């Protein structure tokens, strides 16, 4: 057999094979086990250890590209927070087009299911330009001023009961949960908010950022970490509330297997051509 040809498989054939490998388990789930990592457990415990009725700052700093990975995390954190009767102040500082709308959609669906009311139990403050460092700096002492006094739809904050209780991150917020894909990232939240105030910071990010965040996790500055869709699936499993994260795990595992097989085949082709040369 001419092994060298393995290097030159038409990339469109690979796309179709990967597509099939992702689609088949969606139609016929295999039910592969999902083990829970230490980092996910730490996120769960950071929120679980809060007293009932605490205030959690949830910043869904995502754009359209990474939303499928991070959205399930927002549903899951909202579920855990509302179970403990915690209040949520939500923002979205990465992308004005989809960030605030996705934040609203994913928290609202859980809130409706659990009987929580907008403006009383949670609020979506939306996006602001140049969040880091300007807005983050202002949020510490005056949320109303930082967010120009309006929520994500331009409604005045004064009319919402939750904003009468929560005036500043310094005095009124107990934990910060951030999902991020860029700026502001954990470095910004840590530098300007969490570290100066001594507030626990946790959350999740796209797996593209996983390696670059290790130093924050190791040093304990980040209390656990949800890594992409896999992290979201583990979190859903801990909450015993399967959602979009767990639904995608079979497809993801099979997709990885396909990528690994083609990596091996490509390398066989490469070494075969080197030997011949």
């Amino acid at each position, binding site marked *: 057999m001419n092994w060298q040809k393995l290097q030159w498989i038409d990339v*469109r054939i690979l*796309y179709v094979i*990967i*597509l099939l490998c*992702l*689609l088949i388990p*969606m*139609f016929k789930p295999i039910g592969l086990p999902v083990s829970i990592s230490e980092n996910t457990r730490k996120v769960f415990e950071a929120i679980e250890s809060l007293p009932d009725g605490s205030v959690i700052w949830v910043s869904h700093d995502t754009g359209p*590209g*990474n*939303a*499928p*990975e991070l*959205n399930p995390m927002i549903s899951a954190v909202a579920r855990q927070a509302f179970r403990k009767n915690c209040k949520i102040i939500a923002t979205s500082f990465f992308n*004005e*087009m989809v960030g*605030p709308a996705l934040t609203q959609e994913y928290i609202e669906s859980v809130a409706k299911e659990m009987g929580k009311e907008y403006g009383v139990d949670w609020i979506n403050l*939306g*996006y*602001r*330009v140049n969040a880091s*460092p300007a807005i983050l*700096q202002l949020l510490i002492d005056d949320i109303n001023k930082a967010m*120009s*006094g*309006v929520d*994500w*739809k*331009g409604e005045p904050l004064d009319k919402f009961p939750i904003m009468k209780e929560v005036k500043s991150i310094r005095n009124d917020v107990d934990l910060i949960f951030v999902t991020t894909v860029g700026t502001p990232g954990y*470095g910004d939240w*840590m*530098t*300007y908010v969490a*570290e*100066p105030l001594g507030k626990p910071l946790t959350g999740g990010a*796209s*797996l*593209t*950022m*996983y*390696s*670059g965040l290790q*130093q*924050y996790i*190791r*040093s*304990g*500055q980040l209390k656990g970490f949800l*890594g*992409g*869709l*896999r992290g979201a699936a583990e979190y859903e499993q801990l909450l015993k509330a399967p959602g*979009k994260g767990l*639904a*995608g795990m079979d*497809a*993801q595992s099979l*997709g*990885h297997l396909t*990528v690994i097989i083609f990596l091996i085949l490509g390398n066989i082709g490469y070494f075969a051509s080197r030997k011949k040369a």
Partner: protein
Amino acid sequence: MTLEQWGNITATICIIMAWSYLYKGENPLYTFAEHILVAIATAYGIAYTWETQLKPRVMTDMVKNGKWSLLIPAIIGILIYAWFFKGYEWIARLTMAFWIGHGAGYALAFNPPVFLKQVFDSFIRLNSFNNIVYFLVVITALMYFAFTLRKDRGILKYGSQFGRYALMVAFGSAYGSITMAYLSLIIGQLQIIFKDTLHLVK
């Protein structure tokens, strides 16, 4: 049909148009989807910024509450548009100077404690395999980046070589994570098509 269903159908059509790039590279369908995205993002961005940022500052803070001092930062910000006037481009540098000066100064004022915590974390007991590997990788990676020292012999030569391999392992891990993330994104799009729009998947 509900607004949500229309949204899902539109999303599905846009996903397929964008994916047409995989089959035929840059083509009219792909370009059309790209232009829709850019146009909507720009229009939405302008409207959103006006509604949630500029309008409250101008109408509420300035006109209603009389905080006219806000005009000073507003003027400094507007100066950046001097880029568009030939001969006056230098004025835009004032805005950049304020922005960078404040950003750098503020970051430096706050950063050392955050950064030092990570440095202290590398002072660990060598009582487990993981800790020994961690220690070796930190030291040898630093050796690799010591560009002003001679590294053609002795401990620095082998240390920096080991550091380079350690860095390659880290890049490999990062690349693996990126592949994993992209698969998650495809799964998200497939869920929109087959679950939310076509209702073929439970």
